[in-house]
């Protein structure tokens, strides 16, 4: 093989790998669904803390979580179908979200009402998922990095305003998940998602 052909083949490989290995085919519906879940749960808690009549947690926590899980499963299939591939970054993001979610859920189910006050679980979820967003964001998406910073900022700020503890988390979930999801959905329809 001549040097010109070798150079051309290496450039061909480099062009493919450089683009492909950074692709995150995350469906915006996943971010929006989990963002709305976190926002609604925390907004309800804030409403209760503010003296409003709010139904028991059991009546809306589990249904909302199951709804978000159903959207995640549907969106996962839709995303793979659309992209025609699952990249290594996709697998990595799935593992990070899955592990963080699983650990938080186990801690929530075992520690809440025994050693950790129920109210503190909002902080666990916000801080835990901000870690997931920051890790995936640093690897593959400035948009998720921004979401992670917003949710982390809410986790820090909430402790300084005890009367608005849950309300601040609700705002954090909006800017951590819902807004990035809407930006991703908009940019996808304009064909610019890869740059985010």
């Amino acid at each position, binding site marked *: *093989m001549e*040097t010109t052909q*070798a*150079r051309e*083949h*290496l450039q*061909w*490989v480099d062009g*493919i*790998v450089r683009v*492909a*290995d950074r*692709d995150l085919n995350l469906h915006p519906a996943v971010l929006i669904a989990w963002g709305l879940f976190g926002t609604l749960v925390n907004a309800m808690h804030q409403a209760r803390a503010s003296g409003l009549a709010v139904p028991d947690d059991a009546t809306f926590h589990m249904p909302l979580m199951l709804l978000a899980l159903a959207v995640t499963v549907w969106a996962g299939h839709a995303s793979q*179908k659309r*992209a*025609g*591939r*699952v*990249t*290594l970054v*996709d*697998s990595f993001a799935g593992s990070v979200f899955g592990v963080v979610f699983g650990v938080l859920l186990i801690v929530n189910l075992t520690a809440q009402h025994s050693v950790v006050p129920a109210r503190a679980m909002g902080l666990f979820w916000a801080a835990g998922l901000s870690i997931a967003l920051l890790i995936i964001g640093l690897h593959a998406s400035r948009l998720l990095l921004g979401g992670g910073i917003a949710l982390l900022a809410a986790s820090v700020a909430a402790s300084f305003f005890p009367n608005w503890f849950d309300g601040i988390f609700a705002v954090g979930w909006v800017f951590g998940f819902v807004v990035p999801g809407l930006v991703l959905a908009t940019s996808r329809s304009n064909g610019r998602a890869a740059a985010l």
Partner: protein
Amino acid sequence: MDELLLSRVRLGVISQLIAAEWVTFTELQRSIGVTNGNLGTHIGKLVAAQYIKEEKRFEGRRPQSRYRLTKTGRQAFLQHVAALQAILEPRDQ
């Protein structure tokens, strides 16, 4: 130098798969820009050499073929790229 990867199309297929868990036939065709028949022939050679693994399934009612890189394929790709770089090194120094 790996004889099988001297083809630009086959090298493109392996490059696509090196950064993915799996890629569908349609997506490979779109990203590499070759005809169905041409890609099918090249993929057949890669499957026969066990560089890639073919999985056939149904997406809804439509049949779908998707491909994964094997350990053999990854090793062959890395050695091939190293050989290409070795060709260029004396001139680049």
